């Protein structure tokens, strides 16, 4: 869930589950409407679970 931490840290300036624009539900990633597809979460994912789709 490093993706969740970096998202909140980038946009809310703090580490938080609730302030993140990416949520992990039942092992699946979901994105809130605020997500601007910056790709920070992809950079932080060590497992290859996320990728940017152009």
């Amino acid at each position, binding site marked *: *869930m*490093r993706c969740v*931490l970096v998202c909140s*840290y980038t946009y809310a300036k703090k*580490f*938080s*589950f609730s302030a993140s624009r990416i949520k992990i539900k039942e092992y699946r990633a979901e994105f809130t409407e605020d997500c601007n597809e910056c790709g920070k979460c992809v950079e932080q994912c*060590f*497992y290859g679970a996320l990728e940017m789709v152009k």
Partner: protein
Amino acid sequence: MSFAGKILRVDLTNRKINKYDADLAKDYIGGFGLCAKLACDLIKSEVTPLSPLNPLIIGAGALVGTNAPATSRIYAFTKLPANGAIGWGGGGGVTFACNLKFAGYDAVIIEGKADRPVFIRIEGDDIDICDAEDIWGLGINETCEKIWEECGEGGILAVGQAGENLVRFSMVYIDRLSTVGRGGIGAVMGSKNLKALFVRGSGSVEVKDRKRFDKAVKELLERMKSYPYLKEWQELGLLKSLPAIPRDVYLKLRKRRIACVSCPIGDKDVLELDGGEIYTTSAVNLMTPAVMGMNYKDAMRLTAKLDDYGMDMFEFLGILSFARELSEKGKLELDGEIDFTSLDSMLFWAKKIAFREGTGDLLANGFAEMEKKFGVKPKSVVKGMRAYATPKGPLIWNLFGTMELGQILDPRGPHVAAGGSPTYFAKRPPESFRKHLARMGIPDEKIGEILSGGIKIGKLLCYSHIWFTVLASLGICARAQINRFYSADICAELYSAATGIEMSKNQLLDKAREIWRMLKLANFRAGFTREDDLPPEDWFDDGFRDYVTGEPLTKEDVERMMDEYYREMGLGEFMRG
């Protein structure tokens, strides 16, 4: 700053909840250090482990909640039912540790005893002592599922039937994936009628100096990403070092790998067997009974059941060996056969012990009580617990390194953790340790002393314990796969940047030494002397060997290492021979 700022205190007897400032965290680094201080202050020497007056103190480290890699650990301190030591258990915090910090708490102190089964629900300032009648009696899996169903997403610490029934080797489980063991911490929760803690954190953690913190984290992550064995570790975890089953068999069984919140490697598993899912802290643990001659599928079935009861598998197997020995000597009449190769036999005994049925009631009291009752000294038992590393045990590590010496000198009793020192890996040439020891913050002249004429295991263990205390107080995982990327310098830099408390490497190491000494001395004052640290006699009958030369080791050799350790740790005057 990265501290949550508050300590929560729950009195179950009077159903009172208090919160106070966690200023103490700043004096004791945080996490492990903070909880150690609270434990030494709050655990009275006359209090017995299962008394309502024995507190349970749970805390998360100074970096927990941030994205510094693998900073998700949780520690629980209490007086241990297995031996009466002021001890602790630690585990990968999965989502619990992070949620605790986000809920606003660096630590939780639980005191007293509820008048009926309860679980504690923590959601920021909203804290409830909830009825747990409907989950009392359930295993770990169902307990977690029911709490998640009722409370939604969040972290859970729970006990199974073994904890409820005060089994002296019951453990606490985190999100059903990780364990807080050993020593019977589950029984402390059981004695309080406390089935579980649920925590959801909707708050946050901040760092003081973002630029400085980001730079240190970025460098760490880059090194991790470029590490050539990263993928293999992610894929196999501990199986990479301890291949308990062939890789293809494991991969066929594995459904999913799970990591603690901030971990870039991950080592928890969900496996599929018999059409159901098994949640486990490590596939290696799951396969351990196979070493005793059981086929691997039955080994998995057994460990999964023990995990569901919330019971320490190593101690379970150890106590059954002792029971069989007593039975062969005609001292104990058993309810049934003990056959380590038979799943039916092992499940029979697991149930007997977890529910304290028949002879199981006696075995559930653990080694210390059994020894007292029968007047027979169990093999390889230290401070009332079976040592993990024994020369003839199921895991054969017969070279005597810090892990082995740590079994006797750890104030809480034998444990698998050796503080991330390099002697985890037997037979490595001592010179290859130099880099690792420098990372641990050991001064050059001390490294020279440690590596002169072989390895000075006692001296090295002192610095391993200090290094472990640093990692644990920050919340960093001490596993070799993680701690190899950290150094004392990086820890000091991250701590200073995250908390705003400027801390040099040496200041951090000095504080860590002070914390470890405090724990050892608190136990000394409670009656644990050099005598209790002595190695079991059976370790030397065709037993342990020198780590470097492979020559047989004598008890006197180990006592010399003990003295070396005490002197280096500044405990010589208390623990002298």
